[in-house]
């Protein structure tokens, strides 16, 4: 009784008067957390200082080139490549996933072959392949096979310049990965959802777009966010076919001024910035497709900030039961 950690007001009488509802306990101490944190802090600070004071890094070069117009144009092209390749590959991926899950054996096999081929060879090789397509086919013609009839014919290098080849390579490769992600999302939807949709007379296609895909999205979006970030960084591989994206531009500059490390740091800053920005739309997409799953949605970062500032309460009521009339 004398060593009770359940504190009682001094002089309030014997310890039997402890209110069992209140526990005023000394919190558990975590000395090792403090030790580890301080240890790591010292490590990172000294690493930072050694980098900053490294005489082999010319800091003015970084500040000079971070907003250089050529670098900026590279940034723009990188973003455009990422967005276009992701959008087109997602559409292709959905198509492939649906084909893969269909009962049609021809479609099924075709989709399987596609994924097999494009996932089974390195992206770098695919990029070079599309870049050098002109060596394989000097001309591209559309017509009826085994006859002389052609609708149109064009030089391969005119029809597919480096930029198009790069975009094609990224898109077709990504479609194979996206197809598997979409397929796993579709498989996560309960069989009962198909039955319910069919029982109210929905056709398979209508069911796919209105019932299955919206639910699959919840599962699809997090890995797709991952893929988008990979895509952003994979655009740098297009330097092998001289597409003027961020990394290519940086290597061109550094080959003139011989400041390789500085320009790599410039490029890394931009990639880090862009990948950070990309996680914002992902957050809101997840929120949107998570509707109906959680009883109440978590607050957005903005709502959290506002709540911290005390302007409005943090509880977000998504559904106010409306009056029916």
């Amino acid at each position, binding site marked *: 009784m004398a060593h009770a950690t359940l504190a009682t007001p001094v002089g309030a009488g014997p310890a039997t008067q402890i209110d069992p509802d209140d526990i005023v306990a000394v919190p558990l101490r975590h000395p090792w957390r403090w030790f580890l944190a301080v240890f790591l802090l010292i490590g990172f600070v000294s690493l930072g200082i050694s980098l900053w004071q490294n005489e082999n890094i010319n800091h003015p070069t970084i500040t000079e080139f971070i907003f250089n117009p050529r670098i900026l144009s590279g940034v723009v092209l990188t973003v455009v490549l990422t967005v276009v390749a992701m959008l087109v590959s997602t559409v292709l991926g959905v198509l492939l996933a649906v084909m893969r899950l269909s009962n049609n054996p021809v479609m099924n096999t075709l989709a399987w072959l596609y994924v097999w081929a494009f996932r089974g060879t390195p992206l770098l090789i695919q990029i070079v392949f599309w870049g050098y397509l002109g060596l394989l086919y000097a001309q591209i013609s559309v017509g009826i096979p085994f006859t002389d009839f052609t609708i149109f014919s064009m030089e391969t290098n005119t029809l597919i310049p480096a930029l198009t080849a790069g975009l094609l390579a990224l898109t077709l490769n990504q479609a194979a990965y996206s197809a598997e992600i979409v397929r796993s999302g579709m498989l996560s939807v*309960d069989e*009962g*959802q198909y*039955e*319910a*949709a*069919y*029982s*109210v*007379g*929905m*056709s*398979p296609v*209508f069911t796919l777009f*209105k*019932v299955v895909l*919206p*639910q699959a999205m919840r599962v699809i979006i997090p890995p797709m966010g991952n893929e988008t970030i990979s895509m952003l960084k994979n655009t740098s591989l297009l330097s092998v076919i001289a597409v003027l994206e961020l990394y290519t531009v940086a290597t061109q500059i550094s080959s003139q001024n011989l400041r390789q490390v500085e320009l790599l740091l410039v490029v890394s800053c931009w990639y880090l910035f862009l990948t950070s920005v990309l996680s914002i739309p992902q957050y809101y997409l997840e929120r949107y*497709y998570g*509707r*109906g*799953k*959680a*009883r109440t949605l978590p607050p957005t970062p903005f709502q959290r900030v506002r709540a911290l500032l005390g302007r409005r309460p943090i509880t977000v009521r998504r*559904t*106010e*039961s*409306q*009056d*029916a*009339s």
Partner: protein
Amino acid sequence: MTIEAPASAPVEPLLSALKVRKSYGGVEVLKGISLAVNPGQVMCLLGPSGSGKSTFLRCINHLERIDGGRISVNGELVGYAQRRDRIFEMNPREVARQRRGIGMVFQRFNLFPHMTALENITAAPIGVRRINKQKARDRGLELLDRVGLANLAQSYPAQLSGGQQQRVAIARALAMDPKLLLFDEPTSALDPELVGDVLDVMRTLASDGMTMVVVTHEIGFARGAADVVVFMDGGVVVESGPPEVVLDNPQSARTKAFLDSVM
């Protein structure tokens, strides 16, 4: 629950099943089921689990393909088209069209979780029937009111109790104006105190003249609402007839044993 039909003309059954057979991987679960339900009638299917009653129900709207026999609803073969003396498999769009006339309520509700209660109800009328959005909404609210949930139109299924979800599911099935409603153990997944609300809605539907086939373990419901009670076991119909005969004076020893165990 009287069947209003002129005594002179014999009633054409709304649902008729003839020697329906169905196997799963060599195991025959339906061994020649023959049944008929007249318009406005309520038929309750009773039987132990594994007796084939749910499978039979799912065959009625072609969620399962039958291996033999015939099922027709409203005089039309289900899932097949007969031209002269040959039977053709229907394509998915024709099957979908046919299913619009047959509503179904599932044991596990199967509401669309990403849609509100009202959207669940209006999705098919708007998307499949191409009914004007406002009209579908009004009708949806009217149906929600009918199942006693008018104030929960904007709720998502996850925010509703099991009993409320099942009533939304009934409203969803009703929204397509089906001629026939199928219930697959509609109260089996519910907490006991929520069963009553769902059964009340079903009783109201029955007394309003809806034709219903109900797979259930609720003997009380079968006694009160059914015109015909069918007892199934081992993929065959053991006995069928009015509830006072099958439930109170069963002829088969198998039926007796089953009723003794559930009552």
